[in-house]
């Protein structure tokens, strides 16, 4: 699957005024820490800690917003809202969706980093 369907590189670059170095730094950081952040979200859900779930989803959302990845963003927004509402039952499905979308986003970012932004 092309990264174009997972996130918008053009829009993400526009957010940092087309500063490719900054984008690369952000992408590297997220690739390194994204899975850990996801694990925190899953752990909060497993522990039935709604507040922690909302907090970790909020944190992930802040990062994913920078990459203009609509499906992953939507999943974090939903998960944060469900955490705030204490609806942990509905959160299970959304968390699974987030995992799928996040893994796709991380793979797409790795691909862009490996090929270089000019590719």
């Amino acid at each position, binding site marked *: 699957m092309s990264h174009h369907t997972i996130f918008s590189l053009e829009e993400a670059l526009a*957010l*940092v*005024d087309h500063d490719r170095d*900054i984008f690369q730094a952000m992408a590297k*950081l997220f690739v390194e820490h994204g899975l850990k952040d996801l694990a925190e979200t899953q752990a909060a859900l497993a522990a039935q800690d709604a507040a922690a779930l909302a*907090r970790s989803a909020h*944190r992930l959302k*802040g990062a994913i*917003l*920078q990459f203009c990845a609509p499906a992953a963003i939507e999943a974090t927004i939903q998960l944060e809202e469900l955490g705030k509402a204490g609806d942990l039952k509905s959160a299970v499905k959304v968390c699974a969706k987030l995992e799928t979308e996040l893994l796709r986003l991380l793979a797409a970012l790795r691909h862009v980093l490996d090929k270089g932004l000019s590719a």
Partner: protein
Amino acid sequence: MPLVSPSLPPSCATQTAPQTVLVVDDEPVARISLTARLKRLGYRVIEAGDGKAGLELLRRERPDLTILDWMMPEMDGPTFCEQVRRDPEFRSSQILMMTGHDQPEQIAEGLARGADDFLSKSASKQEITARVGAGLRAANLVRTIENARDEIQRKQDALERELQSAVHYVESLLPIPGMLLPGVELVHAYRPSLALGGDLFNVVPWGDRLLGLYLLDASGHGVSPALRSAAFSTFLRGDSLLHQVGSNDPGAILTEANKRFPLTEDGNYFTIIFARLDLRSHTLSYAAAGHSGSFLHRRSGEVSWLKHPTLPLGFDCSNTYGTVDIPVTPGDRLYLLSDGLYEVPAPTGELWGQARLEDTICELGRRPLAEVISRTIDEATRWLGHDRFPDDVAVMGLEITA
């Protein structure tokens, strides 16, 4: 401090150091993005990864603007705002709260807890530029106002120190209470107003059976009338009167003073009563210039105001002032008062007035002189509703005991 146009990088708009923005966000990717954008706009950016660290940085670095996330570990955004607003030194800091939502309830809560404005996490470059620019303009205005307020306070403090110094000087010129002569007891009270007027009173010893006494009031408020009164009191010293008037007649003294102390360029003048008490003949002689606040309280209880319509000093240099002689007997009390005592306004604006003053003195009757004066001032204070008199209060009481 010049305002920075939001359309220009701050480093180009002014020659001063770039303005500082503190970014507080626990999510490093979003923080890098915002920081990079702000740096490109020409701002100096400092960063913190949670609210607690952000608060420490704000106190240490005093940024012009703080942008912080709502939800953070350790201390969330709204709590950060509350802590800043509670701190007198930092309560006017400008704070932009980042939020992923734009629900009115959340914005209302953020504003209520101390945020100045909001910035969406998905805000466009134009919106970030505009909101940060607006926040910094507000920060500049607040700092300008705070600097002006501090400057006014410094000047006010300096002025009050000067006034206090003048008060101490005036107090050093006042007579020592007690037995002035065998058979004459003096009690006085002096309550300078916050603005300091020009009230001054003193006695002029002319031997063991004769003395002069006066109460003068220089128009206006501040150090200037106090100094003019002090200069006038030098003229009223015993040796000075001997040389410059050649007489201890109150009317002659005021007539000469009228020539020597004309109206100032600002139209300021003196009112005064000058009295001479001769214990050999038991005669009180006095002359007044625009002063109508003194009276004799006879042992019998009768009150005689020493009132005659006269011009204050300095209005007409050819004016002469006459002396009035009245007999006194042991037990009589003479009160010389400044208008600051009986012209005190109640909260409604109504003045206390000479009639209420006279009633108060008469009710206190033959109580000790010091008590009469003290309780009369207390009564005026009650009428005023607080103890900060709008004008100087000067009271000199003499009791003829023999």
